[in-house]
């Protein structure tokens, strides 16, 4: 299950890809803040072949100029699946990646075997304010993202000052994130009204204490997608896969293997 980092060529663009493990394919769609192989991926790779493609504009992946909105990212992700020879895969998406996973399942149901949405962006719940990560200082960002903002995990993933050697990647990643997540209210409204069309068996996983996208957003996904089940991860904020990797992997793998 040792991870491997490779560069794919997809329609003339470079796509950075992490992969590892053996078993049925699991496509992991990353969120806007972290796009590297983490301990949770080792847990998943224990029973699955995990593919973690880095979205355009993030990390080492090119092609950002062609991404205007989530629809473009769906097309791109289908291209990546084609390149990887994945006719169909289980798809797990966190935050931005969760939104992408839901849009993918909506538009290309034959490509998604089972769907796991984790603290997923992309919907609109009237009257429940979302956090604004782009307006947040590092300290406020930690408070929005983590159950324990003072934890080593929180201060490592969201440091007060970005190390100079990582600055360019971080700035480009923030720009790529803002392109998609600034305030996509039309896309959110449309996805929210279309959730009933998703046919993949769906598990919604949510941190009990998510302050960026409160639990009401998870409930909206679970209530909107036919047959979806909601599992709440206690003592977790916006990032259950990183805050509780083993517990999270257990929940996901049990669902995928049920």
């Amino acid at each position: 299950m040792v991870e491997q980092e490779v560069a794919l060529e997809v329609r003339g663009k470079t796509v950075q890809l992490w992969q590892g493990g053996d078993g049925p394919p699991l496509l992991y769609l990353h969120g806007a803040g972290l796009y590297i192989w983490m301990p949770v991926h080792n847990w998943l790779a224990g029973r699955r072949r995990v593919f973690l493609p880095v979205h355009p504009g993030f990390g080492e992946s090119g092609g950002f100029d062609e991404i205007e909105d989530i629809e473009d990212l769906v097309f791109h992700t289908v291209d990546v699946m084609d390149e990887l020879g994945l006719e169909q895969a289980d798809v797990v998406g966190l935050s931005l990646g969760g939104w992408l996973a839901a849009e993918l399942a909506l538009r290309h149901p034959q490509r998604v075997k089972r769907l796991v949405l984790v603290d997923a962006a992309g919907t609109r719940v009237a009257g429940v304010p979302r956090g604004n990560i782009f307006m947040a200082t590092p300290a406020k960002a930690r408070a929005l993202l983590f159950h324990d903002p003072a934890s080593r995990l929180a201060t490592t993933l969201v440091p007060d000052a970005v190390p100079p050697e990582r600055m360019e990647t971080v700035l480009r990643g923030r720009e790529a994130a803002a392109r998609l997540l600034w305030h996509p209210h039309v896309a959110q409204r449309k996805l929210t009204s279309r959730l009933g069309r998703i046919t993949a068996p769906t598990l919604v996983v949510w941190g009990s204490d998510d302050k960026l996208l409160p639990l009401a957003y998870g409930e909206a996904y679970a209530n909107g997608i036919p047959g979806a089940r909601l599992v709440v991860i206690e003592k977790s904020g916006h990032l259950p896969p990183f805050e509780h990797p083993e517990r999270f992997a257990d929940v996901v793998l049990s669902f995928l293997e049920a």
Partner: protein
Amino acid sequence: MQIVCFHLMPWPHLPADFEQKHDSAWLTLPNTLFDPERGRTLYTDYLDQLVAAERLGFDVIGVNEHHQNAYGLMPSPNIMAAALTKMTSRVKILVLGSALPLYDHPLRVAEEVAMLDVMSGGRMIAGMVVGLGVEAYSYEVNPTFMRERYREAHDLIVRAWTEPGPFHFEGKHYDFRFVNVWPRTYQQPHPPIWIPGSGSIETIRFVADRRYPFIALPYSQFDVMCEHFDLLREYAASHCGYDVPPSQIGWPAMIYVGETDTSAREEFEPHFWYLAKKGLRLPREYMFPPGHTSVESQLRPGHAKRKFISLISSWKEAEEGGYAIVGSAETVRQKLREGIKRAGCGIIQGIFQVGSMPHAMTLANMERFARHVMPAIREEFPQ
């Protein structure tokens, strides 16, 4: 030398405990702090100051655009310009604005400037700005598209002014099937275009390619501003094959002329700090949404050297950094002379009302400047 009397029209009544209670004078500052009665007096005084500038012999009067803040009360500078077209008769009127990417309908800018140009008999100077990062929030525009929208809106407006209508403008962000602006601009082919900028590489290239006057932003060290002018001159020489003339370089400066150096500082300083610590109280996170400034510009070494005015803490620092030009007439003349030579500029964009400075003090400042400073500068640096 073209000498501009530029106005920001600040709200001067933020309470003494403002800094303790609020982390920003922009975007999230409750508008219940605005008092319409006092606002009415302010608009009257501020417009009168600009009208006085014509009488005092300034070449240009200028208004500014910002949204949802106490720093400046001109979300729509064209409204002020419209009033000024009828209150003045000779002076040129600069709108700096317009924040093009904020608008889904930049044709409105083309129309309004054309109206103003006809109403004023060809006295308009059209500014075109990207807008501040915080204004991406104010107008809910995705900051990662602001540069693209800016360029496209600029092209649309210039074509709307210069090409016979109707025609179809086909862009990525703007697509208008019937571009046909009535009225046409009074000045032909179109009013002069001035571009303010914070010195980002993108803006430098944009103005150099088009030979537009470039006006720096006033709130960093004088030396940092001059480096941007140097960058413009170097880029134009190496990539566009021409030497940038002084008429293409504008130095924005807060100017206060007192009777003596000591009295000038005493009178000016409280209003300077009001601007620096209250009006420009603006969290970094509001100011720099992702994508508003390119990654390339943010990584440039000069970016770190710049010290925004709200971060300085002593008058010594303000004076040494050249954040404001303050003193007796003789001192101001001397500082301007040196500064003009170093900056290589042919435009002085003076700001004479700063922060909470009251009406009478502002007028006295403008009069002393016009009487004791302006003639000498004109003589030494003819147009």
